[in-house]
């Protein structure tokens, strides 16, 4: 992400320190991760110490300090999904993508994460891709669903 784009986002928030998390969220969603230079720039412009930004960036799961894939796959491991076979869904997705939860593939196509409840237990087991819910999914159907993503 070029520094001008970062500056634009910061300026939009009037360089206010109180907008720190908003700025970080916007950059995260544009860029899919927060490179070091970006954090340094934010620190400089918002006048917030880098150590504090680091604390926040490592505290919330919404932020990533390593590049993320173009598509974020979340497998729900909550109780309802769990009893309906979420584990097998996860294994199938791991097999298809070749990555484990917390990882991103080499082509930066998918990032995989497990989550603890997406709030739609009646649809379990649930796989969420880029915010889109794939409900009542069987392990075999996951590959079919993921194939559609470029």
């Amino acid at each position, binding site marked *: 992400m070029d520094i001008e784009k970062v500056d634009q986002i910061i300026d939009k928030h009037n360089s206010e320190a109180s907008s720190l998390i908003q700025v970080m969220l916007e950059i995260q969603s544009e860029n899919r991760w927060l490179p070091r230079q970006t954090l340094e720039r934010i620190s400089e412009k918002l006048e917030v110490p880098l150590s504090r930004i*680091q*604390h926040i960036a*490592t505290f919330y799961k919404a932020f990533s300090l390593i590049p993320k894939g173009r598509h974020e796959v979340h497998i729900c491991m909550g109780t309802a999904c769990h009893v309906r076979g979420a584990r097998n869904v996860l294994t199938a997705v791991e097999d298809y993508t070749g990555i484990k939860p917390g990882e991103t593939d080499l082509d930066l196509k998918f990032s995989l994460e497990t989550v603890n409840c997406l709030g739609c237990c009646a649809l379990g087991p649930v796989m969420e891709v880029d915010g889109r819910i794939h409900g009542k999914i069987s392990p075999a159907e996951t590959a079919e669903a993921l194939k559609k993503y470029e």
Partner: protein
Amino acid sequence: MSKILLKIDGKEIEAEEGMTVLEAAQGEGIEIPTLCHHQKLEPYGGCRICTVEAEKNGRSKLVVSCVYPVEKDLEVTTRSEKIDRVRRTILELLLSHAPDSDQLRKLAEEYGANKDRFEKEPSFCIHCGLCVRYCAEVKGKFAVGFINRGSRREINFIPDLAATECWNCKECFPLCPTSALQAAYMFTEAQVSETPVFDADSK
């Protein structure tokens, strides 16, 4: 500033409004153990070792003395079977992380804490935040901070700042209740590695 009258361990004490129970006690030479408290720093209330019993209108509760403000007619007890039990458990938990800390061991002896009660998980840092807060509040440098959260929380030096600011300061090292080693270790790591946090597993 208005004066506030309260009792600590049966002793009548005149404190000033806005003072904490700990400050009032210390002013009278009454000892309460602390781990995360430092005179020059804002109250933090991170370790809970300074827990005392406070009674008002016949009701007693456990409060954290380093953050609890003095109140009129409060009756504070700084040592009792109940308090000892709380401190003992806190120490046993902390000792599983920092088994070799002199400060913790001394307290453990005093409160009869069993240092082997919980499985050892030596992370050394007990998250008291003294180093982090001292660097921020007293030195204004913010060279060391926390990263991650929960049980995975640890301190981390910003490499560039560590290289320029820390060599001539190192004032946070002796503050560490687990030994100066934790800070020293992380500091060295920041020196040798270009990007400690940024390529670490930050999940």
